[in-house]
């Protein structure tokens, strides 16, 4: 280790501390810095913002923020479950609870905050909790199992979220708030009242203006709480959510400057009173304020990383907008800017609809032409637009109240064009309009999921998604990309529509379809698309005269074309199982024709470098030995990979190999919008990687779990669990339905994963169609698949048995000569195509050979 590197220690591996390390790595810090972090919690950073989902459907693993391997691969030392207990600023050393002592050049405090527990008698009784970490939630859940009533102390943002959680655990739920209204920081009285009504309608009791004086226990268990007004409330458990306090104990002990009411004082560079020490996130106090949201913390991490790396034009922290939009117990609440109209001359405009239970307030400047802030309860749809109008100081329409009416002219005041490029659209991840536009233009993005993934916009609270969508739409329109999905200039229909027309009209050839629904001669886009539809509908031999000209060369020569115009040969090896005898046959054929040989990712053997005229001869031999086409050339089922399962593996619970073979044989030759890959694993260890496939099957003790729409390749995507513990018959039934449904409805060249991402209604919808047969088409889908299975033929067998078809494989129509242009060199004991430079040398002798007398 070159000791010339500086050492940075980050105390705290929460949301902000982890983000800082990610930024340091992204900005190239590893060259000059050793990065070390201490993580007090028993697990690395996780998404605290979505903590409550831990009670719904997320596991701790789902919530993690750390990309697997991030720490190891980047050589960042992380001490999980260890806490810094002392900072020696003079020596520039830290000491941990486990006794680790390390010197630092720079130190970053990212220690976050802790929940404030009001000083009430009995506040440490059994049955009292806080709501901050995964451990807190585990404890709450366990205790709730033996409780009937739960009280949340604190009617703020977190308190209401917590109340929702208690309710979802089946408790009679109460919220006790000291202030006269809910969310006193964000809402005014009228808004608080509307929110209270809405929440009480959801059977959460709200008690405002209540000061708790006593928490009473009996026999070691909590029983009730007493209030200053002499009333009381029976309860089994209490969760305190009465605000947060910065974790500044380390800073206090080593004499850093703190605020009067705590918080580590930082400047614009996020530096504390010791220039070697920075503080970021909820422990930091900037201009007298703590920022209890993640976005400002992330921004501080940006600033601190810039400062540490001394980048030119380093960002500075200038405070942050505390605007929020939330769904609390299903009620939309938003509060932004100068929500209490504290600016001089500010005017308030309110619309309250007591029937619908909505309250909306705008705060405008004295001239009434600029928006300063506002509050929305019950319907916060306008939030995104209003926030942009405020942040970018865009002129308001004459009657600003119109902005609040449903489908008002808010959109007119804010067109995506008058929004400046610098406007921050996503505050969670600090993504500007300019960055979105650039991603759309430069990367050619045309759909929302991809845009979200590439820019991270909209992946936090989700509040900005409608705006992101509008920007996408506007940009696409500007670029002249009409979002129509005609397959090409020859057919004014989408693939799905054409498929329907073709089946309903029982159209059996491209020419007939073109005559009826298209124009021109067709092209390399529509012809193979239609060929695939014809094949999956009627399953005719693809090289029959009317179809042969439609196929991509791969399909029309039943092999994969390679860069030099030769082809690869891939016989089917169902489930990846092969006898030694057959393996030897493959070896002999490869030897005889001098074919480059490789094992594919799909558990098969591929032979490269077969000339077009050799293909029928090679296949004659293969077919004679019982091999059949592997359809590696088609947009069709490729392979069903398998592990050995319970037959050999000591962990296996089902016979995965047999199932894989059966599935592969059932769907072999099935033409689809794109290639289809599958795998079967014999137990949850998943050695066959079924979750990365278009359809994957994993054995369970009770049967089979079916996963669909996964993908490896360019954009890896995990497959989704469609159904569990199926017996084989049901499994096959669901697969039949799923595959035909996909084939019928996907766009051209659309893998199952992309198809799924666009499927409205997502997994639930897919389950309804496939499992519950909500469209009433299950029978039809199964019948179409059965037709395919019944009419399957090996295309290679049919081809070699038909002399005129074999004729087509001659390289020249007028002589039996082979392609004279091919040239190879040897590498690692096999041939490979010669490079252009190598060809020049080879061809000097070669040319003389191929030039006939003139």
């Amino acid at each position: 280790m070159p000791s010339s590197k500086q050492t940075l220690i980050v105390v705290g591996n929460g949301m902000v501390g982890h983000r800082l390390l990610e930024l340091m790595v992204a900005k190239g810090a590893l060259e000059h810095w050793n990065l070390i972090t201490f993580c007090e919690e028993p697990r690395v950073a996780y998404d605290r913002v979505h903590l409550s989902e831990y009670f719904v459907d997320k596991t701790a693993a789902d919530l993690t923020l750390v990309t697997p391997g991030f720490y190891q691969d980047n050589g960042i030392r992380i001490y999980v479950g260890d806490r810094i207990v002392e900072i020696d600023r003079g020596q520039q050393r830290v000491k941990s609870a486990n006794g680790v002592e390390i010197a630092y050049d720079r130190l970053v405090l990212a220690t976050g905050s802790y929940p404030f527990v009001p000083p009430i008698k009995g506040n440490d009784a059994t049955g009292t909790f806080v709501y901050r970490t995964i451990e807190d939630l585990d404890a709450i859940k366990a205790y709730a199992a033996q409780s009937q009533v739960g009280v949340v102390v604190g009617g703020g943002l977190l308190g209401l979220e917590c109340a929702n959680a208690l309710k979802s655990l089946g408790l009679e739920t109460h919220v006790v708030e000291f202030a006269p209204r809910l969310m006193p920081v964000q809402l005014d009285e009228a808004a608080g009242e509307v929110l209270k009504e809405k929440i009480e309608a959801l059977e959460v009791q709200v008690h405002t203006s209540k000061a708790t004086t006593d928490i009473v226990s009996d026999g070691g268990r909590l029983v009730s709480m007493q209030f200053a007004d002499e009333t009381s409330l029976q309860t089994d458990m209490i969760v305190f959510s009465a605000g947060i306090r910065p974790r500044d104990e380390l800073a206090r002990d080593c004499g850093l400057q703190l605020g009067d009411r705590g918080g580590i004082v930082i400047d614009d560079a996020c530096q504390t009173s010791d220039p070697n020490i920075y503080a970021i996130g909820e422990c930091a106090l900037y201009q007298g304020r703590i920022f209890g949201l993640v976005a400002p913390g992330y921004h501080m991490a940006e600033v601190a990383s810039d400062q540490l790396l001394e980048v030119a034009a380093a960002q500075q922290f200038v405070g942050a907008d505390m605007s929020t939009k939330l769904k609390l117990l299903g009620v939309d609440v938003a509060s932004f800017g100068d929500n209490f109209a504290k600016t001089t001359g500010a005017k308030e405009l309110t619309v309250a609809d007591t029937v619908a239970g909505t309250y909306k307030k705008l705060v405008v400047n004295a001239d009434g032409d600029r928006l300063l802030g506002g509050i929305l309860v019950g319907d916060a749809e306008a939030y995104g637009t209003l926030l942009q109008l405020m942040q970018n100081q865009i002129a308001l329409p004459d009657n600003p109240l119109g902005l609040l009416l449903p489908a008002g002219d808010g959109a007119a005041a804010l067109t995506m064009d008058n929004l400046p490029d610098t406007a921050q659209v996503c505050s969670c991840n600090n993504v500007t309009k300019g960055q979105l536009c650039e991603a759309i233009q430069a990367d050619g993005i045309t759909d929302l999921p991809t845009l979200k993934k590439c820019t991270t916009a909209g992946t936090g609270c989700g509040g900005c998604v409608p705006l992101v969508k509008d920007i996408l739409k506007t940009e696409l329109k500007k670029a002249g990309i009409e979002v129509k999905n005609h397959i090409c200039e020859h057919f004014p229909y989408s693939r799905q529509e054409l498929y329907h027309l073709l089946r309903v009209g029982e159209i059996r050839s491209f020419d007939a379809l073109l005559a009826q629904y298209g124009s021109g001669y067709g092209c390399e886009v529509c012809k193979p698309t239609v060929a695939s539809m014809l094949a999956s509908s009627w399953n005719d031999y693809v090289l029959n005269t009317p179809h042969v000209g439609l196929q991509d060369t791969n399909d029309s020569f039943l092999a994969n074309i390679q860069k030099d115009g030769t082809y690869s040969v891939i016989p089917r090896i169902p489930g990846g199982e092969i006898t030694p005898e057959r393996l030897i046959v493959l070896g002999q054929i490869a030897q005889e024709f001098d074919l480059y040989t490789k094992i594919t990712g799909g558990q098969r053997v591929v032979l490269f470098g077969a000339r077009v005229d050799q293909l029928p001869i090679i296949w004659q031999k293969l077919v004679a030995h019982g091999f059949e086409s592997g359809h590696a050339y088609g947009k069709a089922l490729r392979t069903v990979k398998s592990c050995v399962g319970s037959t050999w593996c000591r962990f296996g619970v089902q016979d995965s190999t047999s199932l894989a073979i059966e599935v592969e044989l059932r769907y072999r030759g099935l033409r689809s919008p794109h290639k289809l890959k599958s795998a079967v694993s014999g137990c949850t260890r998943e050695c066959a990687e079924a979750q990365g496939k278009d359809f994957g099957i994993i054995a369970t003790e009770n049967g089979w779990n079916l996963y669909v729409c996964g993908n490896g390749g360019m954009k890896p995507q995990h497959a989704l669990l469609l159904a569990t513990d199926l017996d084989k018959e049901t499994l096959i039934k669901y697969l039949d339905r799923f595959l035909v449904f996909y084939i019928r409805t996907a766009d051209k060249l659309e893998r199952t994963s992309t198809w799924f991402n666009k499927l409205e209604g997502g997994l639930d919808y897919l389950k309804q169609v496939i499992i519950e047969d909500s469209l009433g088409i299950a029978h039809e889908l199964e019948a179409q698949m059965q037709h395919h299975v019944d009419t399957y033929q090996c295309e290679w067998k049919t081809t070699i048995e038909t002399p005129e078809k074999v004729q087509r494989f001659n390289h020249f129509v007028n002589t039996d000569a082979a392609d004279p242009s091919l040239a190879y060199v040897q590498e690692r004991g096999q041939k490979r195509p010669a490079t252009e430079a190598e060809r020049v040398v080879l061809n000097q002798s070669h040319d003389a050979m191929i030039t006939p007398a003139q």
Partner: protein
Amino acid sequence: MERSMVQSTTTADVKNWITICPLDAIAPNTGVNALVGTQQVAIFRIGATDEVYATGNFDPFSKAFVMSRGILGDRQGILKVASPIYKQNFNLKTGACLDDATVTIPVYPARVVDGQVQVGTSCQVKQ
């Protein structure tokens, strides 16, 4: 050896019509490859008619002799063939690449006489 430099032949230049194969040897809407002298020539048949076109078989993008295996079609009414390797399109009548104005492949006169496909060349080629 730069094969894409091979010159096109126009009907006026034709000194010799070379018979290649019966029309039936070309399935409707497909191409075949023929050896004409030293050149590999791709011959395409439009539909089930006797309308035929001939171009060089060399694909200047992949540098492989594969044009005859491309898919036929039209773009805005211009008859074209798409290279089977990287899918660039070429005008069947002029050889101009429709996706890259700097690239052209040679074209040759082609016709059907008495059910036989013929290609015209400018040189005296022994058959």
